[in-house]
């Protein structure tokens, strides 16, 4: 089974976010990680390969530093990586999906995975858009899956419950937290990853130009949330404090 995993490199979830002098998100000194949801996707792809045999290819679009995230997936056990370099200043989900879908359309695949969203922009769009472009069915927020010869049966999260959905392959599935516990790359895996193929392609290699993938959505400005005013600690022993708190919520905060 040939499995592809679409990945994104993101800021560490522990990262503090600030703006630089031009008013954009400051990227200086922020540690970068493989998007946690994509890590679940990579892990699941590896488990399916271990069960059914086959090959796992990880793919991402971005600048050269994205190689670190791809190498991490290779160290976990993926077989090869593809990096589409698209050093564009302004992109949106349409841009990324159009580029990745073009690259994928020239590859063989039975199943494609992606994280259900990225922890940076949280927009949960690229995987769904790729499926639409490729004309394959998509099932999102998968927290359990059984993959057979020609089909996948996926359990996915909906509000207040779960839904079990069957799709024929090839299909796109997106990983929700809870799907699995991703493995840590072993020392051997890390060493092997250095020798695994990392194919690099430009937009021109894909027969595309910047104008074709120009973003539909434009970011106009960025700003930080206004800091919350310092709250107050209700002093005293717990029973008195708890009683005083309920009173304050009603009389001061005017809620309840």
């Amino acid at each position, binding site marked *: 089974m040939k499995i592809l995993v679409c990945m994104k490199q993101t800021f560490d*979830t522990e*990262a503090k*976010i600030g703006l630089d002098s031009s008013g954009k*998100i400051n990227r200086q000194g922020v540690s970068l990680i493989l998007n*946690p949801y994509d890590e679940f996707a990579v892990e699941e792809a590896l488990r399916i390969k271990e069960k059914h045999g086959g090959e796992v290819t990880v793919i991402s679009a971005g600048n050269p530093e994205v190689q670190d995230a791809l190498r991490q997936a290779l160290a976990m056990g993926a077989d090869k990586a593809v990096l589409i370099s698209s050093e564009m200043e302004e992109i949106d989900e*349409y841009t990324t*999906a159009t580029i990745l879908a073009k690259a994928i359309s020239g590859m063989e695949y039975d199943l494609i995975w992606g994280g259900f969203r990225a*922890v*940076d922009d*949280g*927009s*949960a*769009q690229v995987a*769904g*858009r790729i499926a*639409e472009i490729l004309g394959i*069915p*998509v*099932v*999102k927020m998968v927290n359990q899956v059984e993959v057979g010869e020609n089909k996948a049966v996926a359990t996915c*999260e*909906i*509000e*207040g*419950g779960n*839904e*079990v*959905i*069957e*799709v024929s392959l090839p*299909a796109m599935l997106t990983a929700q*937290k*809870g799907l699995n516990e991703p493995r840590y790359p072993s020392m051997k895996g890390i060493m092997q990853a250095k020798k695994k193929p990392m194919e690099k392609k430009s937009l021109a290699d894909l027969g595309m130009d910047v104008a074709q993938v120009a973003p*539909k*959505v*434009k*970011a*106009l*400005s*960025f*700003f930080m*949330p206004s800091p*919350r*005013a*310092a*709250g*107050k*600690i*209700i002093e005293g022993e*717990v*029973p008195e*404090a*708890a*009683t005083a*708190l*309920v009173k304050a*919520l009603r009389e001061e*905060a005017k*809620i*309840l």
Partner: protein
Amino acid sequence: MAKGIWVFVELRDGKIKKVTYELLSAARKVADQLGEELCAVLPGKGVAELAPALGEYGADKVYVAENEALENYTTDGYTNVVAALVKEYQPIAFLMGYTARGRDLAVQVAQRLETGLMTDCINVELENGQLIFTRPIYAGKAFTKVACPEARPIMATFRPNVLPVGAPQTGKTAEVINVSASPGDIRQIIKDIVRQVSTRPELTEADVIVSGGRGMKGPENYVILEALADVVGAAVGASRAAVDAGWVPQSMQVGQTGKTVSPVLYIACGISGAIQHLAGMGSSKCIVAVNKDPEANIFKVADYGIVGDLFQAVPILTEEFKKLLASS
């Protein structure tokens, strides 16, 4: 020439979800400013009777797309029907809720129409004739203002529980337009739908959330949070620590790798306040923290804090809320 502002009507168990009213209220203002009509889109089976009353929340027209195959939501069925409607009528903008359904449908429709989609928005305003949307990034650690200058329709999903619902204009009805619906080939076959039986509201829609973290010490202790939650009509949430320990399911997690919530009142019990948790609940209107560590980060964002044992404090809070609510 694009015309009209559209809102997707989301149903759950045959009832209109609150986020739909939130969207209609916000879209009504925009439609008035632009001098456009506000239309609701209602796909489903046996849903036509819900349509006229959408007028009370501002809809001028409701496009009802009835079909057997639309009884349950499927990605393909709804995408095929909704995208075809958009192609035919060409609205200027199309808004949906940032819910499991809305988030799914909006992406597929946006790509089919090759347009832009702004997700998880918390505000929309008109500036020099352009719709400007505000959305959180990094789970609310920062915000960005975005626009879709050329592609149409402008698509956006909105976080539930943020936009205020306007007072309904009782008796005002919307014009109902029945349209033909062709769900086409639906490739997602629903095998089962498993609903958790709960009388509590959904996390993302709850006005009050009672949340527990590492300080809960184990899954068995969540009963005290549930007791408090049931007195105030709250949802129960959890921090990543509690989910990763396997005490409660992932669906309860609040934070950057869980749900982002904005209730009126958020009661954090035994939650230290890691940055990734604060990102998920920082937009709550009032935050209460109970933690025995006076240095806990959560106290930096809490409006009210109690330094002490949550196992002592929570049952007292439950009793006090019960008394208070009984007296009012």
